[in-house]
């Protein structure tokens, strides 16, 4: 097995990252918050890269390109439901699909003139109408309640896994960037006559956070591979990734905020925006505790197959 993205997918991700930067980078989310009508600015840029023609469940290459794209979008906290658009099922006439859970489903879909389908963790599908935001985007990060209309068609486990996994790739991009910003900050920031990064106590905190981030990167590749291989555990693998990603996000953002000091809570820093816009990803469709609960309910006493399932598939 190979859980690394192909060179082409990685190059596609880098291209997307540069294109988003050229379109405003960090300013995209700031503009969208001030003027929600500009939420779609990034969609046009990604459209030029052919993002909305990708069919991630159609081929491995397209799946990996989609993952790389989500990661690039996460790096800039792009205020647009990129993962949800890319999860669009081929057989429904919709623009995107969102994984939902619980009696009062919500998603960051406010203010876009698009058609949305939903899928729950058991594969039940519906059509969703996002309610208009009742509070400013700044408070809600575009998260709004969804009015659901159930559909007869059931979705595939792969569709559930895809929706969960692409969201984690977006979150991974946010963690990448938060770590880079913090690394740069502790190298530049001098106190007591030396950079903060010279203090071992600071180094250890950052390395612990990096270990968490790197673990998510590995699992993200694995969960993607699990979808590619149409493995029966794909949804469980996706939930395991989600749990790891949400827990890692807690450690990474906590460390990044502590090491940035007070400035990290001010909107002049990109960290403040990343951290705020990571919230919907960390809490929807399920937060850490509910994800753990769902995963243990599904697994029961059966372990995840993991890398060493005895079949040696491509290993």
């Amino acid at each position, binding site marked *: 097995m190979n859980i690394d993205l192909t060179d082409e997918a990685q190059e596609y991700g880098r291209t997307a990252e540069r294109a988003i930067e050229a379109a405003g980078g960090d300013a995209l989310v700031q503009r969208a918050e001030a003027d929600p009508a500009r939420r779609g600015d990034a969609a046009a840029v990604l459209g030029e890269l052919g993002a909305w023609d990708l069919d991630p469940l159609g081929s491995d290459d397209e799946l990996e390109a989609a993952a790389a794209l989500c990661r690039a979008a996460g790096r800039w906290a792009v205020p647009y439901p990129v993962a949800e658009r890319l999860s669009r099922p081929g057989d429904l006439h919709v623009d995107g699909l969102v994984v939902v859970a619980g*009696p009062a489903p*919500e998603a960051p879909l406010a203010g876009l003139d698009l058609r949305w389908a939903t899928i729950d963790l058991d594969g039940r599908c519906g059509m969703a109408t996002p309610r208009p935001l009742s509070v400013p985007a700044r*408070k809600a990060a575009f998260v709004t309640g969804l009015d659901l209309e159930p559909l007869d068609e059931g979705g595939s486990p792969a569709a559930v896994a895809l929706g969960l996994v692409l969201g984690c790739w977006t979150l991974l991009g946010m963690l990448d960037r938060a770590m880079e910003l913090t690394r740069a900050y502790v190298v530049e920031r001098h106190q*007591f*006559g030396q950079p903060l990064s010279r203090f071992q106590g600071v180094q250890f905190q950052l390395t612990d956070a990096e270990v968490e981030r790197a673990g998510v990167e590995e699992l993200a590749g694995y969960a993607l591979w699990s979808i590619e291989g149409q493995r029966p555990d794909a949804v469980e693998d996706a939930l395991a990734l989600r749990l790891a990603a949400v827990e890692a996000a807690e450690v990474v953002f906590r460390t990044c905020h*502590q090491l940035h000091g007070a400035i990290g809570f001010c909107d002049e820093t990109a960290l403040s925006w990343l*951290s705020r816009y990571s919230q919907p990803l960390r*809490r929807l469709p399920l937060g850490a505790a509910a994800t753990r609960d769902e995963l243990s309910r599904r697994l029961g006493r059966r372990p995840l197959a993991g890398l060493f399932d005895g079949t040696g598939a491509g290993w």
Partner: protein
Amino acid sequence: MSPATDTDLEAFRAEVRNWCRANVPAGWRGAQTGVSDDEFVSFQKAWFQQLRRAGYAVPHWPAEWGGGLSSAQQMVLYQELAAHDAPRLVLAFVSIHHAASTLLAAGTDEQRRRHLPAILDGEIWCQGFSEPEAGSDLAALRTTARRHGDTFVVNGQKVWASGALHADWCLLLARTDPDAPKRRGISYFLLDMRTPGIDVRPIRQATGESHFCEMFLTDVEIPAADLVGPENAGWQVAQETLSAERGMTMLELAERLGHAGFGWLLDACARPRPDGGRPLDDPVVQDRLVELEIEVTALRRMCRHLVERHDTGGAGPVDASIVKLHYSEVLQRLTDFGAEVVGLPGQTVLRKPVSSGWESGAWVLDFISSWEWTIPGGSSEIQRTIIGERGLGLPREPAVGP
């Protein structure tokens, strides 16, 4: 403690309880949520005067200046105020603690006579210590004060001056001898905020509030009479007064955490979710609550012990650091758990009762605010260094020259 003292204390407790029942404004939390700055300020000032009339506003001050309660009485007072969920003195905090302890420890008689009664009448103070290049390393501050006869002329920039928009006076540290070693060239000033040349700008925070301010000082003139302590000894004055009062202020906060904070958390856990279930019925939630209760109980004991040792002169050099570190991190864990329990809807609660403690039940805001404990006032990293070096006697971290 002798039986006679116990009886006196119980009588005092009964007195405070009666006072709280009669005076804590009913429904103040609701009424003080989302109010304007002006309403917050007038509410705080009115509450301060109410406490003052009862003799409870500045219990830690010497009797001659309007205080004079014993440590044991102060503990009772703070326990009862917390138990009755009284508003906290947020606006006057720097005035009655930092400003007063500076004046009492290092001020002249004239400075005390001028400011202590004024503080009782509502004079508000802020702190002008931190700078863009001087956060944890406060002694690296660059704001300069150059002497011209009987006047110092101040130039520089301060950040994170909490409440500077409302302040009448500011405790200011500035460099008076640029050639001296960095801790020996700093002086401590009392700065009248009406002086020309002061530009205060609020900083917008992640929570949407602007509690902190930047302060730009351009040719600001301070009369030499407003210097506290000797010229160039400001660092020593600040060191003395910063840690002096920590015991009782920490005790107050720990009592708040134990009463209001933990109580709000239990309420949040007992509230039914849209699916009808309650977080409280989950064994994992029960475990976490028990852990937190143990930590909060231990914190309250630690604070009490610290105050008692301060009184008898038995406090160690790092006791205050241990309490500050422990409080900061318990507060962060408790508010984090609160944010987890209330889930996504909690993210949209962006207003909290402004006169409350650090935990108010607006859990996400409370959690974000908890970094106001792990970062300022000597970050958790600084506290660990102090405890390691001065408490455990571990070697200092090697300083690597440029």
